[in-house]
């Protein structure tokens, strides 16, 4: 059922959910609250991805948008609409935009974790943001920002435990394949080259991870023909281990003394990414170390530009 609540308050919303629930049935076992802040991106896409995620992780989902006009809160509740949890869309008008946390705090579920997701533009220091402070996990997406690379770097510079950028989630399969390749070719790696489309934060982060783990020279090369990451070469004593992907779906894997083989390495859509991300609510130590390295690499290469990033 969909219930529209124009000009309302947190207490009203709470009351309406309770009474609506007695007719459509209680969801038991909602595991967390997801707050999606739809700024600088499409509300419909955010809602769709949230509903998708809610299908895998029954939860209370609060979708936050801002609108001009007199100070007012509009809400829309979706209950029992082919998702196990509650979906609450909140539109903040006027001055209320500055006090959004005051509405959200009474609406988060008791005891369980709170996750905030900024699919579009995000605050420069999510951990210090009033909404960000409600959460244990703060998920940003550099790809949703107008200029992805500086956005990712900025997050690395302001990293706080609990932050996570979906750029990292996009890397999981690449990292898995690269790690698996070194399970079997046990030669030390001497140097690494990562090539990716220009201004691509995913390649930048992969380079930082490889740098952090291997401690060797990692070169990042622009490949104007590609989509996302187009290839990684690990230069070892035994020869080159190479993983290349030119079309955004199939990758070719080659290693010394082995035939070249194909492996599916598709780019994943936002629904799949956020769903994977919500599987883990704990601190990601590997991400934290990689972001620290990314910040270090940035300072070393480009010390002057740090302050100017938006």
């Amino acid at each position: 059922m969909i219930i529209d609540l124009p000009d309302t308050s947190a207490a009203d919303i709470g009351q309406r959910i309770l009474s609506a629930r007695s007719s459509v049935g209680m969801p038991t076992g909602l595991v967390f609250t997801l707050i999606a802040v739809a700024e600088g991106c499409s509300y419909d896409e955010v809602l769709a991805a949230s509903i998708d995620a809610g299908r895998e992780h029954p939860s209370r989902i609060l979708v936050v948008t801002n609108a001009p006009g007199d100070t007012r809160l509009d809400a829309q509740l979706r209950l029992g609409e082919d998702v196990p949890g509650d979906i609450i869309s909140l539109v903040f008008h006027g001055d209320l935009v500055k006090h959004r946390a005051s509405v959200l705090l009474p609406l988060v579920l008791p005891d369980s974790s709170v996750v905030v997701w900024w699919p579009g533009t995000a605050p420069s220091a999510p951990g210090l943001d009033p909404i960000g402070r409600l959460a244990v996990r703060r998920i940003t997406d550099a790809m949703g920002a107008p200029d992805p690379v500086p956005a990712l770097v900025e997050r690395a510079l302001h990293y706080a435990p609990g932050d996570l950028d979906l750029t990292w989630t996009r890397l999981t399969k690449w990292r898995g394949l690269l790690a698996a390749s070194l399970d079997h070719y046990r030669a030390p790696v001497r140097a690494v080259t990562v090539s990716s489309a220009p201004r691509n934060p995913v390649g930048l982060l992969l380079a930082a991870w490889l740098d952090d783990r291997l401690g060797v020279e990692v070169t990042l090369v622009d490949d104007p023909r590609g989509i996302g990451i187009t290839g990684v070469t690990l230069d070892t004593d035994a020869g080159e281990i190479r993983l290349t992907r030119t079309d955004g779906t199939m990758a070719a894997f080659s290693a010394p003394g082995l035939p070249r083989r194909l492996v599916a390495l598709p780019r994943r859509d936002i629904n799949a990414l956020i769903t994977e991300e919500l599987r883990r609510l704990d601190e990601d130590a590997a991400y934290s170390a990689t972001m620290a390295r990314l910040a270090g690499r940035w300072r070393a290469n480009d010390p002057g530009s740090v302050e100017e990033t938006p």
Partner: protein
Amino acid sequence: MSETYRNPLRDPLDRRLPRMAGPSALVMFGVTGDLSRKKLLPAIYDLANRGLLSPGFGLVGFARRDWAAEHFAAVVREAVEENCRTPFRTDVWQQLLEGIRFVPGELDDDEAFQTLAATLAELDRAQGTGGNHAFYLSVPPRAFDTVISQLKRHHLAGDENDRELGRWSRVVIEKPFGHDLASARELERNVSAAFESQSVFRIDHYLGKETVQNMLAFRFANELFEPIWNRTYVDHVQITMAEDIGIGGRAGYYDGIGAARDVIQNHLLQLLALTAMEEPTSFAAEQLSAEKQKVLAATRPGRDLAQDAVRGQYLAGWAGGRYVKGYLEEEGIPPDSRTETYAAIRVDIDNRRWAGVPFYLRAAKRLPRRVTEVALILKPAPHLPFARTDSSGLGSNALVMRIQPDEGIALRFGAKVPATGMELRDVTMDFGYGRSFAESSPEAYERLILDVLLGDPPLFPRPEEVESSWAILDPVLEHWADSDESPQGYDSGSWGPECARQMLARHGRVWRRP
């Protein structure tokens, strides 16, 4: 190849990094069977789709069919498209397809095994499977010996030289592991003559189910339940596996086996072990198995087998709105068959935690619904400060771990009925894994196949556990074999024969209606 190599890209703290199987080829005997089509082949695809198979993966089908490799690939594709749990993607299929081969032949045909050896060598070259081979025996148990000795004879079972080069050969067998203690030992002898013990994977797909691992988490990650998990609070335990179907087309397999051998010996005794065992030092295969083995060694059937072990056979009748045949009328079953389709036995565990607490195990076909669960029935409260009429609606507290369907935990306790008077009634607090974690849990076979390829055995029963289970069941089977009585009939679609009810009623207990 030094032992101390540590992959610099792996970090124990980096838990997001997937456990990915290394280069390897999986050879499936009996690839045309039902299990392959419905479970195994789709599971392989799903693993590939989740990015858990190495690019250097090969799949070899072996069967008595005059098929070309392309035809086999089409068969695999059809099975995958029909039964895979993740979306079908052509790019993932393309990746799998490169490594698919087919070897036609009989299991006792030397030439076919030479072809198999040549095919594997070719895969190692063309696909980079690295000389690592897993052999999945999805064939009837009587064929195990033939296949295993053929593998040995054609040098496919792995030797010193292979191990030195870091290559492995593993064999996967499915239950039943023998039909009594003696035959289980013989099977073990034959398998271990060809393969090293850590290279033998016995699949009991029940143990690959998430819920069995959930049981471990439930018991050992919480403080709430451990204090009552013993003879002081638990009156008795009921472990049930009920099926609503009959034997279907499995007459040839089922007759002479029966419910006790088919289900109690493996699934139910494994569930008993997980329920009753002490906390393992860790969840490593070794530690887990040590605890299971210890509790199974302390388990014995009830003292009076005539009363503590009962069996039944389903009769024709209406089950769930359909008229169904009785067991003896099923096609291929001899009219004088004494194979049980319902078995219930009491076992006792002689240790400090469980002495005096009976564990009732029942397994049956043609019951009202399909359900598997473990229920701990608690003792009554020592004193009830209510009038007897007030508490007449009150039963025993119960903690139920549902394995399937709708995996979850239910807690049954008394509550006051809202009214001016004091009236008590049982209510249920229910937790469903599917409601809190709607994330579709991987199919048991996915996990098990991945574990075989990774060489990670915690979810597989060890030969000692298999043998202990037979040792528990053998006296019951012998008692039944020597008995003049036939299994008692029960109506299809009912909760079992009268003798089963009496078995518990004698001690003032009743079977739960799950």
